[in-house]
């Protein structure tokens, strides 16, 4: 019932604000799409599309990729609509279009719903309805399961919610092949297990923000030491997972070596976060892991793109 009440309140706020002329600029709507997250989605989906064994006409492939990107953007807009109250009290997000008053909540909701519907239909027509169904599920999972439910209720929010961010390469794979396979599931798992150390490394530094906003992130609920332990555990699962595409035989040795070296570097940084617990050096270690995790995921998927997609290093 609380959820229904929350939704009704947000819709009423949106209708009240709609009586005023919109101050929104085009760039504000672009910001609702979370371009940073979108770029990672586009890249991982591109890799899924290229390394998948199926064939999709390049024009349809480009439209499929655009649909996945727009679907991710729609999720971002719906997330910002629901989370405007949280965003307003966090330093990292207080300048987002809705808390800053540049976009009205109702505008963001309509924008997100239109893009979500359009992207799913477009992907279904360009590729197939399995991929479209996966995209619809991803948007629903991120906007409803993660944003509206898990984020405010459990410290495992980003662990479970991370599934939404992990699905794009699987969607692209389904677009190219019409099916989901173990190989595409491995790509999903790589991003799924990447998410907790990535976000918790940032949350360690920004835990005050989350506490003020009432978001039960792990450092707020279980403390920094337990968070460091969890980061290390997830890193110990994530780093070897990077090598699995080579072990399964769908990526060559050149990829396996790249993933192994990058995995060791990731573990070293996770270990530093675990060991260095006080003052500025601790914050520095966390931010180093956060920044490196982005680079690490990029390197893994770029290596897949180069070795599997483009065929370089396949003789190794």
């Amino acid at each position, binding site marked *: 019932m609380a959820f229904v009440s929350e939704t009704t309140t947000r819709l009423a706020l949106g209708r009240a604000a709609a009586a005023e*002329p*919109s*101050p*929104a*600029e*085009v760039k504000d*709507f672009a910001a609702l799409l979370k371009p940073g997250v979108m770029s990672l989605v586009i890249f991982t989906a591109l890799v899924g599309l290229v390394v998948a064994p199926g064939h999709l*006409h390049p*024009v*349809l492939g480009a*439209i499929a990729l*655009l649909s996945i990107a727009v679907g991710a953007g729609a999720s971002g807009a719906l997330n910002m609509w629901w989370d405007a109250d949280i965003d307003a009290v966090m330093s990292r997000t207080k300048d987002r279009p809705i808390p800053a008053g540049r976009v009205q909540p109702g505008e963001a909701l309509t924008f997100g719903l239109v893009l979500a519907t*359009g992207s799913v239909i*477009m992907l279904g*027509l*360009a590729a197939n309805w399995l991929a479209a169904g996966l995209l619809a599920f991803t948007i629903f999972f991120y906007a409803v399961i993660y944003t509206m439910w898990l984020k405010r209720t459990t410290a495992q929010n980003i662990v479970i919610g991370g599934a939404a961010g992990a699905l794009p390469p699987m969607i692209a794979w389904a677009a190219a092949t019409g099916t989901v396979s173990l190989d595409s599931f491995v790509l999903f798992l790589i991003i799924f297990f990447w998410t907790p150390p990535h976000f918790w490394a940032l949350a360690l530094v920004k835990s005050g923000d989350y506490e003020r906003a009432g978001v039960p992130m792990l450092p707020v609920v279980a403390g920094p030491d337990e968070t460091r332990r969890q980061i290390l555990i997830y890193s110990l699962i994530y780093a070897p997972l990077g090598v699995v595409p080579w072990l399964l035989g769908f990526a060559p040795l050149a990829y396996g070596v790249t993933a192994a070296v990058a995995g060791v570097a990731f573990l070293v940084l996770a270990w530093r976060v675990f060991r260095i617990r006080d003052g500025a050096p601790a914050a520095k270690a966390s931010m180093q892991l956060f920044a490196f995790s982005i680079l690490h995921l990029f390197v893994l998927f770029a290596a897949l793109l180069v070795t599997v997609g483009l065929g370089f290093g396949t003789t190794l």
Partner: protein
Amino acid sequence: MAGPDDDHDDGLVLTPEQRRRRRARNIAIAVILLVVVGLFYAMTLVRFAPQPH
């Protein structure tokens, strides 16, 4: 006779800045609609093209 751009009809008077922003949003929507039409056109061409055997 009031024109479609006459903001006095509903009691709202837009400032020049608000008009500029609304015009920019309208142009962006028009561009997006044109892109969508182009995408459907391209998709139709590819979908209905003879498939190689």
